């Protein structure tokens, strides 16, 4: 059975440097400790439910890295929750992170399989019963009860090939894994 990925063809350019990624795989096989990364974000309270994350440094390839630019991600809550609505809610940022992770993965897998993307859009929805976070019913969870992602992909490929891209991007996605499998989370006070 040819379950293997098709080889790279020259004409395809999704803006992904697959060759370097394959090179990294080879390097990590020799030196698995270099593959240990730690990412971080620092979140400062502003006022009310408003707060702001700054993201720059991370650890990887055996050393600390500093980026050329510091990124910020702000969060808040909408007016129906009597908040200022200056930024998306944290759960929406999670949905955005999932969509970004799957879409980035889609482009990388497509590049590796020699499929030229023309356009790709993911629409993501999450259902939440807010009685959970309001502590009104112990049987209702705080988080999303269901998340749905719908992809619209225009590419030089058959419908099954596109479905396979979308499936593979889920299989290799960090955020998809974090949302579908439990993760140990430790919160402490410094």
């Amino acid at each position, binding site marked *: 059975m040819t379950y293997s990925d098709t080889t790279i063809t020259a004409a395809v350019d999704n803006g992904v440097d697959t060759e370097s990624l394959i090179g990294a795989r080879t390097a990590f096989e020799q030196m698995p400790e270099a593959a240990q990364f730690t990412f971080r974000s620092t979140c400062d309270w502003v006022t009310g439910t408003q707060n702001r994350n700054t993201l720059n440094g991370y650890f990887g390839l055996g050393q600390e890295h500093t980026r050329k630019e510091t990124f910020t991600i702000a969060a808040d809550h909408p007016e129906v929750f009597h908040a200022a609505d200056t930024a998306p809610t944290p759960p929406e940022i999670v949905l955005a992170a999932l969509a970004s992770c799957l879409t980035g993965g889609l482009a990388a897998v497509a590049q590796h399989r020699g499929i030229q993307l023309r356009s790709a859009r993911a629409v993501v929805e999450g259902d939440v019963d807010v009685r959970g976070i309001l502590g009104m019913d112990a049987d209702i969870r705080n988080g999303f009860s*269901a998340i749905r992602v719908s992809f619209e992909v225009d590419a030089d490929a058959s419908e099954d090939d596109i479905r396979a891209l*979308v499936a593979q991007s*889920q299989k290799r996605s960090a955020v998809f894994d974090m949302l579908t499998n439990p993760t140990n989370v430790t919160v402490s006070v410094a």
Partner: protein
Amino acid sequence: MPSIDTIIIGAGQAGLAMSRCLSDRSVPHVVIERGQVAHSWRTERWEGLRLLTPNWQSRLPGFAYRGPDPDGFMTMPQTIRYFEDYAGLSRVPVQEWTCVQSVTADAVGYRVQTDKGEWTCRNLVLATGACNIAHVPDCAAGVPDDIVQLTPQKYRAPGQLPKGGVLVVGASATGVQLASEIRAAGHEVTLAAGQHIRMPRHYRGRDIQWWMDRAGILDMTTAQVDDITRARNLPSLQLIGSAAQRFVDLNALQDAGVEITGRLATIRDGKAVFSGALANHCALSDLKMNRLLAEIDDWADAADMTGLPAPERFAPTRHATLPRLGLPLSEGRIRSIIWATGFRPDFSWLHMPVFDRKGRLAHDNGHVAPGLYVLGLPFLRHRNSALIDGVGRDAQALADHLVASRHRHAA
């Protein structure tokens, strides 16, 4: 201390095939077997199991099925008899009831320490198979004490299970067959399904194995796949050795009343926690099946086969919109758990630096070290290396290499 040119460890299909190949090449050898010929087939299989390959597809060097039902599937007693006949016909020099305790290298070859004494040899063939240890995930430690836990090696029949619900973990060939027979015996069954590959038993009028054999799919070599580690770790096809059961897939199991959940992620606070990725695992399985069927259709077109039924595509795998994410194990609903979570070979007695970082035996197409060979592992040299039908070809090639290297030694 007895010394012999070549020792083969294990008298299953791989060891018997290698012995036959060495006899054909006049290489003195002995086969060391912990029990009797086909020991694992006698002692580590459930009662209802039949081979997943048709009778015609158990071809071994100098031996093939000659009975009245080439398209049937052997029961375990028939399989054992088949290997006994092969061993007898090939006059395999088996030393039974001899357990290998340790293998080390010395200046000229290998020392094999057994419970019946030590042997030395120039060449050594590891033919102990790929399924010595039933893998059980670490989270099994969290299972409450009053729940019966079994691996497929210890499971014999549904009658062995306590009354009540059964959680089957794993949806490859073993998991789906056990879920099916345990459900048919009247138990409430929940099946946790991660990666799996759905496949029809027969397609366009022929057994699926007939297609894979004729279309050359089983002949694919290690050089023809771009990720051999992945190819070696693919789950087994969801098949059962019965022409009457075309599918033993998640749809068939759901029709029979089995509840399907995502992969078992962990057991926490007495509760089984399942992954929320079932939909994608079902999609991947359908895609893989359809890719194989398309490959078969292309081959049939090119081969100009006439009178074939038209190509078929099957309804996608169904799954609940919101499959269960948790299952309490302490409330009495689940009384037993079957760990159908894969098998590992056991080379713990092989005291040589021949393992990779993950503890797997490192080999190149069955070559482990000079004079040291392995047989019968998944995709060892070809896609069908771990099938009864595939091990003979590998044995021929390694026997040829062994003979050629012997002549070099002599010169």
